[in-house]
C-alpha cells in the first residue's frame, strides 16, 4: 500500500521527530509513504491573512503536483498544512472561476481528484484495522488528547470529528492501551503563530492547557500538530512564568505513542528530541 505524503516545512525542521514517528509507524504496518516531489510551503500560517489568491495558489500547486504524480490520497500530518490543503481543495471545487484564475496563475492543471488525509484519518483508515496482535507494549498511561484549533475546524469544510468535543484521537489512544481523560481544553488555542511575536500570550494560553491536563492527572499531552507541539513543549519558560510554577508534563505526537505501543524503539521515534524529557 502506497500513499502520498506532504510533510510541509515544520516536519523537515523543528518537528523532525514527527516525521520520524509517522514513517516508523507506517513502515511497521506495511504502508509506504511517498513524498510529493518538488513540493512547496503551503503558506500557513501567514498567507491567508495577507493574500487570498496566494494562500490558495500555494496549496493548489502542491495538490496539482500530487495529482500529476498519480497520488490518490495524500497524508498531511501537520494540522495547519492539512487545514490549508483541505480548504483549498474545497474552494477550488466550489468556485470554478476562482480555480481558473489560480491554475492559470501557476500554470498547472488540477482536476481535484486528490483526497487529503490528516494523520488521524490515515491511522484510522490504514493502521488501526491491522493493529490486532501488534500492540506489544500498551501505553498504559493517562493521557490528555489535545486537538487544537485546526484539526477539527471549520467543520463545514473538513467534515471531520465533532468540532467542539472531538473523540477520534481519544479512541486511537484507547487502542494504543492508553487511558484518555475527560478534560476542558481539547480544542482551545495554544497561541499558534504568536510563538515568536508574543511569546507571553503563548505562555498564558498554553499554560492553561497544560495546567488543566496536569490537574486532571494526565501523564502526557498528545498532539497531532507540530505548531501545538512546539508551543507546549518548547515554550515552557513562558508557560512556567505565567503559571508561577514549573510544569513538566511531556508532549507527545500520536504517532510516537502508537510507535511505542508497537514496540518501536524510542530513538527511531525521536523521543530524545523533545525539550521536556519524556520519562514515561
Amino acid at each position, binding site marked *: 500500500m502506497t500513499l502520498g505524503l506532504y510533510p510541509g516545512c515544520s516536519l523537515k525542521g523543528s518537528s523532525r521527530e514527527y516525521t520520524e514517528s509517522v514513517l516508523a509507524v507506517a513502515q511497521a504496518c506495511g504502508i509506504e509513504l511517498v513524498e510529493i516531489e518538488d513540493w512547496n510551503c503551503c503558506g500557513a500560517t501567514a498567507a491567508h491573512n495577507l493574500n487570498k489568491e496566494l494562500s490558495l495558489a500555494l496549496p493548489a500547486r502542491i495538490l496539482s503536483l500530487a495529482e500529476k504524480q498519480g497520488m490518490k490520497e495524500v497524508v498531511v500530518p501537520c494540522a495547519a498544512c492539512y487545514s490549508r490543503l483541505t480548504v483549498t481543495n474545497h474552494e477550488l471545487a466550489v468556485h470554478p472561476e476562482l480555480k481558473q484564475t489560480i491554475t492559470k496563475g501557476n500554470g498547472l492543471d488540477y482536476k481535484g481528484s486528490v483526497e487529503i488525509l490528516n494523520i488521524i484519518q490515515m491511522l484510522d483508515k490504514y493502521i488501526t484495522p491491522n493493529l490486532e496482535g501488534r500492540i506489544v507494549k500498551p501505553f498504559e498511561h493517562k493521557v490528555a488528547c489535545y486537538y487544537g484549533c485546526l484539526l477539527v475546524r471549520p467543520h463545514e469544510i473538513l467534515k471531520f470529528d465533532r468540532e467542539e468535543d472531538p473523540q477520534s484521537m481519544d479512541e486511537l489512544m484507547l487502542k494504543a492501551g492508553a487511558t484518555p481523560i475527560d478534560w476542558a481544553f481539547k480544542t*482551545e488555542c495554544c497561541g499558534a503563530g504568536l510563538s515568536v511575536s508574543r511569546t507571553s500570550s503563548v505562555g498564558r494560553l498554553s499554560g492553561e492547557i497544560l495546567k488543566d491536563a496536569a490537574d486532571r492527572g494526565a501523564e502526557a499531552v498528545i498532539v497531532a500538530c507540530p505548531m501545538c507541539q512546539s508551543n507546549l513543549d518548547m515554550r515552557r519558560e513562558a508557560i512556567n512564568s505565567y503559571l508561577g510554577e514549573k510544569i513538566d508534563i511531556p508532549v507527545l505526537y500520536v504517532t510516537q505513542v502508537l510507535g511505542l505501543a508497537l514496540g518501536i524503539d524510542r530513538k527511531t521515534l525521536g523521543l530524545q528530541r523533545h525539550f521536556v524529557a519524556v520519562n514515561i
Partner: protein
Amino acid sequence: MSKIGVFVCHCGENISATVDCAKVAETAAGYDGVVYSIDYKYMCSDPGQSLIKSAIIEKGLTGVVVASCSPRMHEPTFRKACAEAGLNPYMCEMANLREHCSWVHEKGDATTEKAIDLVRILVEKVKKNHSLNAIKVPVTKTALVIGGGIAGIQASLDIANSGHKVILIERDPSIGGHMSQLSETFPTLDCSQCILTPRMVEVAQHENITLYTYAELESLEGFVGNFKAKIRRKSKSLDEKICTGCGQCTTKCPVKKIPSEFNEGLGKRTAIYVPFPQAVPNKPVIDRVNCTYYIKGKCKVCEIVCPTKAIRFDQEDTIVEAEVGAIVVATGFTVKQPDFFPEYGFGKYPDVITGLQFERLASASGPTLGEIRRPSDGKVPEKIVFIACAGSRDPAKGIPYCSKICCMYIAKHAMLYQHKVHGGKSYVFYMDIRAGGKMYEEFVRRAIEDDGVNYIRGRVSRIYEKNGKLIVKGADTLLGAMPVDIDADMVVLATAGIANEGSEELAQKLHTSYDSYHFFSEAHPKLKPVETNTAGIFLAGACQSPKDIPESVAMASGAAVKVACLFSQDELTREPLIAVVNRQAAPVFSSCVGCFLCVSACPYQAIEKEEIKNRTGEVIKTIAKVNPGLCQGCGTCVAFCRTKSIDIQGYTHEEMYSEVMALLNEY
C-alpha cells in the same frame, strides 16, 4: 356564435400611465366574436361593474374578458358581477394588464402591444370556455383536535362552546402539554398550573368533547368537511371505567427509578404512573417498556393491590374510526436536548440543565418542591448563569431562527431565582433581548433593575468543570469583547425550541406541508396564519413555530373560529377547477388506457380506479377517475397522462391551446 365583451380598466393611472388603454379596447373591438369593447377608469367600482352587467344583458354577451389587475385581486368581484347579470361566472376571464404589464414595463408602443396580446389570448380562450358549476359537498360537524397542550385545549373549548362536537386526541397520558410543566408564567408571574388545570378539567367534563389520551392519529382519508380519521388508542393496560384513581397501584409498584418525563428527568416515577398529581384524566397507565411483568412475565403487584380490579394486562391497542369535518393540529414543540452542546458540557455535567428543567426546579409541584437546588448534590446554587440562544440564531447548529420565548423565560427564571435565593448572584449571557409584547420589556427591566440580575451581552464559548465549579467562559461585547470567566454552581441553557418529535410523519398523514425546520406550514405567513394548504386543516400554537402562551391561545381561538365558520354551513361550495378524466361513447368509453401513472403522480391521492362493466357485470375496462372532493386542481396528473385523457376544468387542453394559437396567429 360567441358574443364577447372586453372591458379595459385604467386602474386609476396604474395601467393607463404606461398602456394606451383606448387603443387596447379599440383593437379588441376588431376581433372575431367581440361585440362590445370599452375602457374605463375603475372597472371594479360600482359604475364599472354596472357597465359589465348592462352589456351582458343588453348585448346578450356569452363571454367577458376584463383586462385589469391580477385575478388574485378581483376575479371573485368580476365573476360575481357576471353571475348577477345571468352569465355563468366561469365565462369571465381576466387579463392581467397591471402586474404582468404596466407595472413591469416602461411606457411605449411595445407595452401597449403586449397588453393587446394579453387581451387577445383571453378572448380566444373564453370562446372555448364551458359553463361550470361550483361543487357542493356536505359537512360533518365534528372537529378533530390533535394535541392537548394549551393550544389544543383552547381550540377544543372554543369549538365545543360554539355548539359543535370535538374529538381531542393527546399522545401522552395527560393533557396539559408544556404549560403544565411551567412554574410561573411571564409577564405576570401567575402560577401556570393554577390557570391551566381548571381548563383541563373543563375539557374532560364538556359534553361536546370526547377526550382520548394516550392516543395518536393512525391515518386520515377524505377531504374538507368529510374526513375519516383512524385513531390509535394505545393500551393503558387499565379499564378506565372501573379505575377510581385511588393511586394504590402507583404507590406499590416496585419499579420506582424511571426518570419522570414530566419532571424532565429530575424526578422519578413508577412503571404504572400518573404523570403528575393534577393530570387529566387522573388515572394511571402502565409503561410497558419498564414494567417488570411485561419484561420478565411476573410481578402483577398493581393487579393485586387494585381495590376495583381495574388492571388489564392483556388489553390491546384499539382503533377508533371517526368522521370529522375539520382538523386542528396543536401538537406543540419541544426543546433541544443533550449532545448538542459538547462545548457547554450539556449531558456531561448534571448541573448544566435546560430551561424546562429549571421550570421543574422552580415549580411548587416539582422534585424540590420549588426550591432551587442543583441536581448533582442538592445544594442551593450561590451563583447561577443563564445562557440565551443556546442553539437558536446559530446556523452552525442548524437553527438560524430565533426561538422567540427564551428571552422572556430567562428573565423570569433569573427573577424567580433572585426571589427564592436571597443573596444569590445570577448572570444572563445574551445576544439581544427580544422582549416585544405587552408588558414584556417592562418585565425584563424589572429583572435587571429591581432584582439585580446581571445581564452580560456576549456569547459563552465553553463551560468546564474545575474544583466543583462550572467555569463559564464568555465575553462581554459591550466592554470590547472583554473575556468574562464566571465560576458558577449551576448553568441553565435556553436551548432552542424545535419541532415536536413525529411532526413530519403527522404532516404526511394529514397531507399537509411542513417547513425546512419541520414545523407545520401555514397557508400564508400574513393573511392565513392558522390555515394550512389543505382545506379544512388548521394550525394552533407552537406546532407552527415556537410561541408563548398568549400567542398560542390567540391562534387556537383563531383556528376555532375558522372551524366554526366551516361548520356554519350545511354544504360547502368549492371551485370546480378540478381534474376530470374524459368519458366517451361505447365501445371506447374513455381515451384513458388505464396505465394509472396519474394515480402515483397525484399528491392528494385523489385518483381512483373505476371499472366499466357490461350488462352482464363483466369488467370490460378499468380507467382512472378523479374524486372531486379530494382533487385540489394542481394539474400534476394532466402533465403525466400520456394519452391526454385528463383535463382541468377551466384550463382544458383545448382552452390552453386556443390561447397559444392566439399568440402565434397574426391578426
